[in-house]
């Protein structure tokens, strides 16, 4: 079979470029310019898929984005894409498509027995049937339903293609490049506006491509060519094909999805498959046309039943015919264009069934001349199975019946303007009786609607309306150039008589994608789900990939009829973005895998890599977690060695990730007094102090060490996690709360590489690093000192701080970031005689737990300064953020959970964070819960696991044996509540 249904001539396909493709393993061919749908039509393929619920045979219903039925799995392997609409799939050489939701084959689908059981698959079936017992849901019902119902199968491998996002800005965005959109873009472009003309299709022209009409007295194709040539000559107009506008967002931002490389088997190197555009437009002209609506009758889902406009598109645009004996069923004069198209294509029309009571007399004459019968009546059902329509059953308006032989039934129930985007800001579409359709009502600011999308269906209205709105939009955006003349076409009048549903034999489908029938809508009405939003949820009408573009209006019209309300009274459901399917890949864009988020590297990162460090993600940062040495089998071995080396000798750690903020200005001290609970204005120049800040509700926000470098210059440090939020908070205080204070703030996090050097041999190493003139003795540089120092032999000014997180004799040194790698290498050189080791975040964490220093796990958004044992730091004679609220009764209650040390009684027990603290031997439960473990580690110094935790009245319970219950690991063990400072409690080591 070689393109059996391709017409001898016609269409805008390139017959000199044949393309091979396969469908369900059959090798077929089409032409460049085909969609997969038109190529299937040209090959006489009618059966394309099985339906969602009943596995009914389905064909192609439409020729556009609204297609509910003809969904396939496109491509294979990792690039397999399920639920691809064949009507918007551009044909390419080697295309491989497979039908879905059938087994073992499309023709012989075992689950088609669902059709026999269909009486039970009615609306609300899942809700009603699979209720009890509840535990069967996950184990049995859901997997079963998932196997039986559903659409395509997704690829199981990672998507090998890449996706990106981009921004564009313009004065006028025109959505849709049919006659109205092109007219609008041309007018706005001539006026001088920056215009983006976006078209979902790969070809511009819209209905002009399908319905050969005349513009300015010539074939519309001539106008199309010259208009596009003029647009191409305008630098200020950008045409984006394969690009659909899918959402209107706030402030004139629009979402566009560009299918950059869906029309080739594999995207060219370095090119994305899809690109998601954020377009910021001062004005937007919607010219997205209208969608032809079906009529609901018996077996209206049979392959061969097709929208009349789609039949014309396959004939006119693609030079292929969906049938050889076509019957037309219409309730409007536009449907009659199908007869013209068939006559042009040389395809036989077997009959026209027109449901309008007052059938125009010229219609009957037309039939006589054309050699086909014209019936005044309605189609009740069609005969035929998976191979398509064979007969059409008609009820004549007089009461008689008729039967027509046909292999294709072209249906036109009238047109629905594509209002979707106009309703994205809760605008309610308005009902227009004359066209029996909803038109836009209450568009988002800056949006206007032209042509068929506004219910003005004739070509002349599209051309003039588009031109007018295009020039208006340009003017509104500040461009007063001349928009030129609008193109002209003959006036036409659209006339229709509403017809939604005809009773007849066989299932009558409203939503073909979700297998929702007219009886389901009636059932929903009987059961009280009359609101359209309820109707949608109860029957699933209008859900899934097509979002009910061909079914919503019919569904609510039937609901209106059976519930005795008018259609506008019944109303529409909410239209939300996306208007067309958008790939998840495009929404993620560049941000996947390693690029999921931006990565921050510390200044000694590359040095650490040479040392074989294992890195951990800390927020956006990559930090060295530990430095394994040859022979070490577990991470714990490495960490223990690092801790022991620091405690007994010396080690260093890159602590650059801590936030650093320059706080400057004459009121810097006063400012810090107001944000910290303790006093900084009286801190001497050359000194550092630990500071704690609260939120205004009295809960701890962050902590860190702040040094005074000069009278009007403080250098604040924050925790790694809170660097950004603290900066934002300080700017709030400066700009909003205390605008008169002379304070300047800026992040200095990136300027300085900061290293902590810790251990009893720190001075020896540091002495070799610093200029010999620097006195770092206990007298020359006492604990909590802070000043600038010089490096040995290098004219680099650094900052040295005598602060300790590990509890050992320690200094932190800041060098300009460019010397981060050099500093690490030099510390290794200078420290070699003393056995220095680099240590990572794990050892850092172990040592701070041994010392009972609170960190992120304890500053957890629930603790007060008092809870952390820092209540004495709260100054009494000054105001600061959080002071008043920290005095609330509950915040100072003696019953609060406070920070304590927790030590398993059995030295072999492992302690983990997250365990709950209960009285010894109590039954675990909410009523016995008295606290929780916040941090835990193995302490090589105490040779056992240790932890910190929050325990009710904990400070009064030092020495008490309680139980830690760890339900995650199914363990409960006895622990001793102790002083959180496990190691060197009097702090002598850090002051040495």
């Amino acid at each position: 079979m070689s393109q059996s249904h391709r017409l001898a001539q016609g269409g805008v396909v390139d017959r000199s470029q044949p393309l091979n493709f396969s469908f369900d393993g059959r090798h077929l061919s089409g032409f460049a310019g085909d969609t997969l749908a038109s190529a299937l039509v040209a090959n006489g393929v009618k059966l394309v898929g099985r339906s969602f619920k009943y596995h009914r045979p389905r064909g192609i219903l439409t020729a556009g984005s609204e297609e509910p039925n003809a969904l396939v799995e496109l491509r294979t392997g990792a690039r397999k894409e399920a639920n691809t609409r064949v009507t918007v799939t551009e044909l390419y050489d080697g295309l491989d498509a497979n039908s879905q939701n059938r087994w073992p084959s499309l023709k012989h689908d075992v689950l088609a027995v669902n059709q026999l059981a269909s009486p039970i698959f009615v609306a609300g079936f899942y809700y009603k049937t699979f209720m009890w017992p509840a535990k069967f849901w996950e184990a049995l019902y859901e997997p079963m339903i998932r196997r039986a119902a559903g659409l395509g199968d997704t690829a199981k491998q990672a998507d090998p293609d890449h996706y990106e996002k981009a921004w564009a800005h313009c004065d006028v965005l025109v959505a849709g490049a049919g006659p109205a959109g092109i007219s609008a873009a041309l007018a706005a472009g001539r006026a001088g506006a920056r215009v983006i003309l976006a078209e979902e299709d790969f070809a511009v022209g819209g209905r002009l491509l399908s319905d050969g009409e005349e513009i300015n007295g010539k074939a519309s194709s001539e106008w199309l060519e010259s208009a596009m040539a003029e647009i191409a000559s305008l630098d200020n107009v950008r045409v984006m094909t394969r690009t659909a506008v899918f959402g209107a967002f706030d402030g004139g931002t629009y979402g566009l999805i560009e299918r950059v490389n869906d029309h080739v088997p594999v995207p060219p190197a370095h090119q994305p498959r899809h690109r998601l555009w954020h377009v910021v437009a001062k004005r937007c002209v919607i010219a997205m046309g209208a969608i032809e609506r079906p009529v609901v009758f018996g077996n209206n889902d049979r392959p061969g039943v097709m929208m009349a406009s789609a039949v014309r598109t396959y004939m006119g645009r693609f030079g292929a015919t969906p049938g050889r004996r076509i019957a037309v069923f219409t309730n409007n004069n536009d449907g009659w264009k199908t007869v013209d198209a068939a006559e042009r294509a040389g395809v036989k029309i077997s009959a026209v069934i027109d449901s309008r009571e007052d059938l125009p007399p010229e219609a009957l004459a037309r039939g006589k001349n054309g050699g086909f019968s014209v019936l005044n009546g309605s189609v009740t059902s069609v005969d035929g199975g998976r191979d398509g329509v064979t007969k059409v059953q008609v009820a004549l308006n007089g009461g008689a019946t008729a039967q027509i032989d046909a292999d294709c039934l072209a249906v036109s129930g009238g047109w629905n303007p594509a209002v979707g985007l106009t309703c994205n800001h809760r605008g309610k579409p308005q009902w227009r009786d004359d066209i029996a359709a909803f038109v836009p009502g209450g568009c988002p600011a800056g949006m206007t609607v032209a042509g068929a999308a506004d219910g003005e269906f004739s070509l002349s209205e599209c051309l003039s309306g588009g031109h007018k709105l295009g020039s208006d939009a340009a003017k509104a955006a500040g461009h007063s150039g001349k928009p030129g003349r609008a193109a002209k076409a003959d006036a036409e009048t659209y006339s229709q008589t509403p017809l939604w549903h005809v009773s007849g034999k066989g299932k009558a489908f409203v939503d073909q994608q979700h297998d929702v029938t007219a009886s389901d809508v009636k059932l929903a009405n009987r059961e009280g789900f009359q609101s359209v939003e309820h109707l949608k949820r109860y029957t699933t009408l209008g859900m899934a990939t097509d979002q009910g573009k061909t079914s919503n209006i019919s569904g609510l019209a039937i609901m209106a009829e059976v519930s005795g309300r008018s259609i506008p009274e019944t109303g529409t459901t909410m239209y939300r973005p996306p208007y067309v399917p958008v790939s998840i890949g495009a929404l993620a864009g560049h941000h996947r895998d390693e690029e999921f988020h931006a990565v921050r590297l510390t200044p000694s990162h590359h040095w650490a890599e040479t040392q074989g460090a294992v890195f951990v993600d800390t927020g956006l940062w990559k930090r060295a977690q530990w430095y394994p040495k040859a022979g070490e089998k577990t991470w714990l071995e490495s960490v223990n060695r690092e801790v022991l080396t620091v405690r007994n000798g010396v080690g260093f750690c890159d602590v650059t990730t801590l936030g650093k903020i320059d706080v400057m200005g004459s009121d810097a001290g006063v400012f810090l007094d107001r944000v910290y609970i303790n006093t900084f204005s009286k801190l001497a120049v050359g000194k550092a102090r630990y500071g704690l800040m609260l939120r205004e509700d009295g809960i701890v926000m962050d902590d860190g060490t702040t040094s005074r470098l000069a009278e009007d210059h403080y250098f604040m440090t924050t925790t790694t996690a809170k660097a950004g939020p603290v900066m934002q908070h300080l700017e709030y205080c400066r700009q909003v709360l205390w605008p008169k204070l002379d304070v300047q703030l800026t992040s200095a996090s990136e300027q300085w590489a900061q290293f902590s050097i810790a251990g009893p041999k720190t001075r020896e190493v540091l002495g070799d690093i610093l200029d010999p003139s620097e006195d770092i003795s206990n007298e020359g540089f006492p604990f909590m000192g802070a000043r600038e120092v010089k490096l040995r032999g290098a004219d680099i000014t650094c900052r040295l701080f005598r602060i300790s997180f590990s509890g050992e004799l320690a200094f932190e040194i800041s060098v300009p970031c460019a010397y981060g790698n050099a500093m690490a290498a030099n510390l290794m050189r200078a420290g070699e005689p003393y056995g220095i080791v680099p240590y990572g975040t794990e050892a850092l964490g172990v040592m701070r737990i041994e010392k009972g220093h609170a960190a992120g796990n304890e500053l957890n958004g629930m603790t007060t300064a008092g809870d952390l044992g820092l209540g004495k730091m709260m100054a009494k004679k000054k105001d600061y953020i959080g002071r008043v609220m920290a005095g609330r009764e509950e915040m100072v209650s003696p019953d609060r959970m406070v920070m304590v040390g927790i030590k398993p009684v059995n030295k072999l027990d492992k302690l983990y964070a997250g365990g709950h603290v209960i009285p010894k031997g109590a039954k675990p439960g909410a009523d016995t819960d008295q606290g929780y473990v916040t941090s835990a580690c193995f302490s090589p110094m105490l040779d056992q696991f240790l932890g910190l935790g929050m325990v009710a009245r904990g400070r009064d319970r030092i020495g008490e044996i309680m139980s830690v219950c760890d339900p995650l690991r199914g363990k409960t063990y006895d622990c001793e509540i102790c002083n959180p400072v496990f190691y060197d409690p009097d702090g002598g080591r850090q002051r040495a």
Partner: protein
Amino acid sequence: MRINCPYCGERDASEFTYLGDASPVRPDAIPHDPPLDNDSAEAMALRAKFHDYVYLRDNIAGFMKENWYHGGGCRTWLTVERSTLTHEIRSVEAAPGVGASVKSSAKRGRG
């Protein structure tokens, strides 16, 4: 959503951080010397004031003034008058202490 920063021009909302209602004013809370007893009527009254400042917010359907931080740009705090129903923005003003400005704002307390 687009916010028209007085310094940077119109920018996408993703550059900004939201901090709720801009109308509450931080009460004056200069500590007494000697400090108040925590249970005294005066201390409780002050806490009541702060309670309102920290927690009480009107749930406005319509235009309200809000704090927005242009952290992805010039780092200024802005007062944005925005409709909670439509996201329409009626005005954008810089906070009184933006940059080096000395614009005084009595109702924002001392400082």
